């Protein structure tokens, strides 16, 4: 039966629990969580940037985002946004279901089309960059040529155990591009067990870094900056795959801050950052309109 001494009973711990709850409630009240939907101000000239809007961004832009932020803040100080990175398709679907993102920076024209089919946006989308594919290899045993395709063919031909990772061709635009490249090189389909499909581009890259695979085809923007020393990067010829059009669209409910950012991104002033970050130029005069 019960030991000597007072055990914890509700009558004794409940007051402390209630106190804790009260503290939590106070903390919650202090956090501005309710303002996910921006106020409907129409003073565009006012540029009242006091609420940081949430925007959806394709994950291939993750690496370039800090540089972009610095760049736009040089021209538009006080403009801060809360980016959520993810697969373009997933983000578009979330926005269809009411996610409070004001803009979608997509890597996939299809995702934009999804949003245009809804009533959420009536503005025309704008192309802001073109994606490039990179071959990432563990440099041990790399060949002399600089041509990515040759290197790829060599790698897969030489070593019957070498494995290649690509993003999922079914969901990711860069995955589809990777498959296009392999088809062009007459390497598709690979022998069973030779091809590893990553759930997203970052995971695909992780496979190479960790040594699980010997090579991968990933967005160039992911590897253009910091890269481990034993990794070799080669850019894949853009002619080998369908263009990876990065398109953005702004929702009708967007705040002036978001609109300003959209304008800046589609503008030539952002091009320098994108180029540095491993993107190609936007095909001129070719903003899709569907």
């Amino acid at each position, binding site marked *: *039966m*019960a*030991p*000597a001494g007072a*055990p914890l*009973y509700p009558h004794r711990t409940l007051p402390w629990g209630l106190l804790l709850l009260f503290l939590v409630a106070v903390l919650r009240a202090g956090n501005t969580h309710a303002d996910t939907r921006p106020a409907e101000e129409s003073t565009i000239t006012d540029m009242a940037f006091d609420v940081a809007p949430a925007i959806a961004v394709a994950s291939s832009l993750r690496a370039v985002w800090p540089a972009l932020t610095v760049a736009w803040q040089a021209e538009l100080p006080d403009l801060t946004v809360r980016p959520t990175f993810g697969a373009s398709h997933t983000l578009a679907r979330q926005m269809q279901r009411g996610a409070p993102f004001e803009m979608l920076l997509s890597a996939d024209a299809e995702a934009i089309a999804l949003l245009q089919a809804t009533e959420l946006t009536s503005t025309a989308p704008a192309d802001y960059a073109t994606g490039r594919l990179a071959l990432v290899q563990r440099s041990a045993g790399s060949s002399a040529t600089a041509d990515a395709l040759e290197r790829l063919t060599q790698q897969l031909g030489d070593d019957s155990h070498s494995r290649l990772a690509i993003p999922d061709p079914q969901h990711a635009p860069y995955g589809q591009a990777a498959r296009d490249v392999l088809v062009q090189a007459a390497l598709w389909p690979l022998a069973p067990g030779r091809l590893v499909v990553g759930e997203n581009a970052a995971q695909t890259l992780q496979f190479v870094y960790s040594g699980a695979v010997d090579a991968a085809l990933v967005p160039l923007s992911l590897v253009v900056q910091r890269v481990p020393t034993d990794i070799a990067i080669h850019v894949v010829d853009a002619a080998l795959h369908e263009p990876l059009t990065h398109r953005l669209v702004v929702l009708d409910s967007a705040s002036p801050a978001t609109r300003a950012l959209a304008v800046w991104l589609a503008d030539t002033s952002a091009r320098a950052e994108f180029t540095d970050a491993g993107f190609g130029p936007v095909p001129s005069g070719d903003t899709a309109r569907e």
Partner: protein
Amino acid sequence: MKPATGQHDSACDGLLVRLQQASPIPLDIELQCKRGELHAICGPSGSGKSSVLRIIAGLRRVERGLIHCGGKRWLDTASKHCTPAHRRRIGLVFQDYALFPHLSVRRNLMLAMNHLPRHRRMPRAEAILARVNMQGFGDRQPGTLSGGQRQRVALARALARDPDVLLLDEPFSAVDQQTRRRLYRELAGLRRSLDIPMILVTHDLQEVQQLADSLTIIHRGRTRQHGSVDSVVRFPDDHLTARLLGHQNLFRATLIASTTHKSRFAVGETILSGPPCELPPGHPVTLLIPPSAIHVQGAVDARAHAAHTAKLSEPENRLDGRVRDSLALGDDLSLRLWLEKVPKSLRFRMPRQSLQHLDLTPGAALQVQVLPEAVHVMGVIDSET
């Protein structure tokens, strides 16, 4: 307040219980207990005695029932009246004590005292503890007490409620023999000062004979016999009740003839005489031969009925047998005698000294004599098993 069904009992401030149901367990009970009386309910396991107690306490429902206690109507299914258990003033002592393990002894008692104003509770708790010889134990935790101590606290908690009836559910079964005997004495002493009806549920006949005034034998939910302890134990109504009471030496017989001062029975191949009997000749009966009726030929009998041996000039009720076994039990000897002509064993105990010069090795021949007027006759009932 008069009940809607049946007549109002004259012992109206005692306990009156009438219960009937078919399922989940069949019950057909009627019992009454006056104030200051300790009534035992006795029966084998599964006979429903614990259920009866819980129904009286209000912890279980019953299909049809009537319970009156202390002038209050607790249950009357006919008028759909049922006072919930916590509104009845019940003192229930559980078989496993059921003390609240997280509260001290004193708090256990004080929790049962919401009928008293707060400032009176502590002194009253101390007073009750003193009554059960547990003074000074107020701050102890139940887990640190021995079995006997816990039982006293359980009793104290039951009394703390100032109950209208005290219910004891096999309260001593979890306690060792020595403690049990001590608790019997204490309870016997305590009950003198309790002016409430008391119900004791037990399967131990010794307990009944030591503590109870009256007794109800219960079997499969039905009352088989009730009355004073003495009358029920010595004169059971039928074979089954006798078995339930733990009697041995039950012999099936047939009545040959009966006169005004004795009757004769055919038992196996022999004939026994017994007290007068009102049944028709040829009627099957069961004879109960209590140990007090047996006299061993050649034994030095110091018992009271030794005076009767003078009357036994006739070779009446002499039975020849052979010793089956003999077991020493303290100062007594427990004998099993095989009666060839019956044929069945006779069991009885006698002080060792009275048998010491007799040959009691297994197989030895021995003759016993049975006192006719001490034989108890029971009519056979068909529904026996």
